[in-house]
């Protein structure tokens, strides 16, 4: 009967939530927003590339004075530019409208700026003058270098690979950071998207005055555990809905969307990091869910629970205030405090695990702490629901909770 009812609670909670338009609106709003933003970025990016290219290749009449001696007259000739002896003459020609622009190349272009004068064409259009002026100098200099390698290096086209060693073995570096950081993303998404639902899951019974019927029909532990499991399943559904447009976008429209070509074969799935990350994620999820469910059981309405809910969510973001310390100085006292304080532990733990600065013994303490505390908080949530939710319109004091 116990297991049977657990299944009934899970299916009831899942079906009633999935039947709500609000749930699907919430789920689809975020990926839709992501798609819109990516599309806008892609469109803007291609437009700005096109604009830059147009500017570089744009045709306009110009004059120049080369004091540096680096400008190749042949290149200028292809662009139909003409040399003038002085800066003043060039500026005067622009002012009179004889030419569209005038460039003055100083003796030392690496120290002094190229001076560009031109007809006013609007803020964005004016950029073409300096683009062409710089392109002439850059191309002129490159034409003097015979080696393609030297030419590439002067353009800054340099690559490097780094291998670091931990305990005598090559560490994954950034390639191992990405997979383990996915847990952090999942954690934030689930809590932020389902947090309110976790909070209201027991408030529903309370606000609908259905608590007494429920308490005499089903063991409250089954009810609470059923609700937590259904929330987890809903979280998975949300993850899938999020993932589908992202994966589809990446696989089929990567070049259109101008997304980087990530070589997934280089990603390192370190078994220890992945296991620790998964356990911290589950422990953190259980702790936050249990706490929010307990909060819902203790408070008469969602409005009353709001301030504490806000504080809990803020605790999730606090570790990011010391992000640089977490990355660079994991033994700093504040990082240690955040590592072991239960409500900042999941995020700090997952960050340190990703950076490879969470030793196994510390990970074991964090994971044990999260699981033990989750069990305690879930028991408290059951107790609060059992003795607290009958107080339909009254907040419970801690004394009442523990003396019940």
């Amino acid at each position, binding site marked *: *009967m*116990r297991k*049977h*009812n657990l299944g*009934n*609670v899970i299916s*009831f909670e899942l*079906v*009633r939530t999935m039947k*709500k338009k609000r749930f699907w609106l919430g789920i689809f709003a975020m990926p839709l927003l992501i798609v819109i933003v990516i599309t806008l970025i892609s469109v803007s990016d291609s437009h700005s590339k096109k604009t830059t290219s147009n500017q570089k290749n744009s045709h306009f009449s110009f004059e120049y004075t080369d004091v540096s001696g680096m400008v190749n007259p042949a290149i200028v000739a292809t662009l139909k530019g003409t040399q003038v002896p002085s800066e003043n003459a060039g500026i005067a020609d622009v002012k009179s409208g004889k030419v569209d622009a005038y460039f003055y190349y100083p003796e030392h272009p690496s120290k002094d700026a190229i001076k560009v004068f031109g007809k006013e064409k609007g803020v964005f259009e004016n950029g073409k003058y300096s683009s062409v002026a710089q392109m002439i100098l850059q191309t002129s200099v490159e034409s003097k270098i015979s080696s393609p390698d030297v030419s590439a290096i002067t353009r800054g086209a340099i690559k490097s690979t780094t291998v670091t060693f931990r305990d005598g073995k090559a560490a994954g570096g950034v390639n191992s950071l990405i997979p383990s950081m996915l847990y952090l993303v999942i954690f934030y998404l689930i809590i932020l998207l389902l947090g309110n639902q976790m909070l209201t899951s027991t408030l*529903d019974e309370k606000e*609908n*005055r*259905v*608590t*007494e*019927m429920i*308490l*005499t*029909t*089903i*063991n409250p532990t*089954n009810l609470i555990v059923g609700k937590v499991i259904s929330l987890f399943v809903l979280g998975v559904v949300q993850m899938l809905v999020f993932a589908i447009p992202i994966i589809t976008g990446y696989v089929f429209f990567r070049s259109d969307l101008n997304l980087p070509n990530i070589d997934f074969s280089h990603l390192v799935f370190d078994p220890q990091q992945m296991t620790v990350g998964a356990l911290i994620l589950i422990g953190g999820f259980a702790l936050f869910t249990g706490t929010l469910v307990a909060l819902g059981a203790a408070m008469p309405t969602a409005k009353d629970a709001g301030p504490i809910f806000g504080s809990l969510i803020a605790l999730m973001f606090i570790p990011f205030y010391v992000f640089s310390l977490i990355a660079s100085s994991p033994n700093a006292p504040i990082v240690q405090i955040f590592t072991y304080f239960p409500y900042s532990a999941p995020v700090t733990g997952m960050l340190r695990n990703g950076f490879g600065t969470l030793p196994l013994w510390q990970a074991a303490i964090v994971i044990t702490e999260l699981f033990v505390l989750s069990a305690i908080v879930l028991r408290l949530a059951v107790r609060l629901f*059992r*003795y607290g939710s*009958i107080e*339909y319109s009254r907040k419970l004091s801690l004394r*009442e909770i523990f003396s*019940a």
Partner: protein
Amino acid sequence: MSITPLVHIDHFRMDFGKKNVIRDLSFEIRKGETFGLLGSNGSGKTTTIRALLGIYQPTQGTLHINGREFKPDSGMKLGYLPEERGLYKKESVIDVMVYFGRLKGLDRVTAHTWSLDYLQRVGLGEKDKTSIDKLSSGQQQKVQLGVTIMNNPDLLILDEPTKGFDPVNRRLLMDLIEEQKKRGATVLMVTHQMEEVERLCDRIILLKDGVSRAYGTVKEVQDEFGNLVITIEHVGELPQSHLYSIIEQGGGESKVEVVAEASPTQILQEIMRAGVSVGKFTPTPKSLDDIFVEIYGSETSKD
């Protein structure tokens, strides 16, 4: 009806902080009987039921159903209609009924079929797909009663079952309770409606200030509190007498309560001796309504 107790409450005491709600309460409910738990507002009726069902932890004493403390997963077939009414308001009638049916151990098909039949019977046949919050409060109560009885409970606990019902639906509800009673269910009813008590209850208990003020069959309680009440049609003023006290008077008709140990014959003789002409002289036992007013009169008027 068996005399084996299904519910046994022994020296039950309930405190909320420093406030004592139930002082010392003991009573039994026998298998198959309909038992009335009566009392004014705040006399501890709902507290007693909640403690019996394990919702509250008693401060002292034992509250047993079938010889042990109640647990929802103990296999006991219970139907409970709480005073605080409510169902999942945003869900449809049929979904809520099937969900509770499943929680009570029915399979989906049985719960669904039973629910549709019940809704048809109580005039909500077209409302199965309507969400609960679209129903009137009376219709919601009907749904909640259906949820309460759908598993054919062995023990049916109804906290003010007719609250908010119009007379037609009250009668329908009483019929449903009677059916459960005939089926063999034990019924515990909390009510202020003495008419319901007289119609349905085998035995009752009256609570006041956290203790029992009267306990037994309706007749036993009437006998305990109830000196006879005599309705007299008369011409002339009734004399003052140590044999009776006048309860109501006016329009040539008076109601007098017989003082203990006096007989109706003695009273009739005394009245006639005073020269009062008597048209009709009808002795009746004191009604539960009168007993209720006598016990709680001063405090219920304050509520």
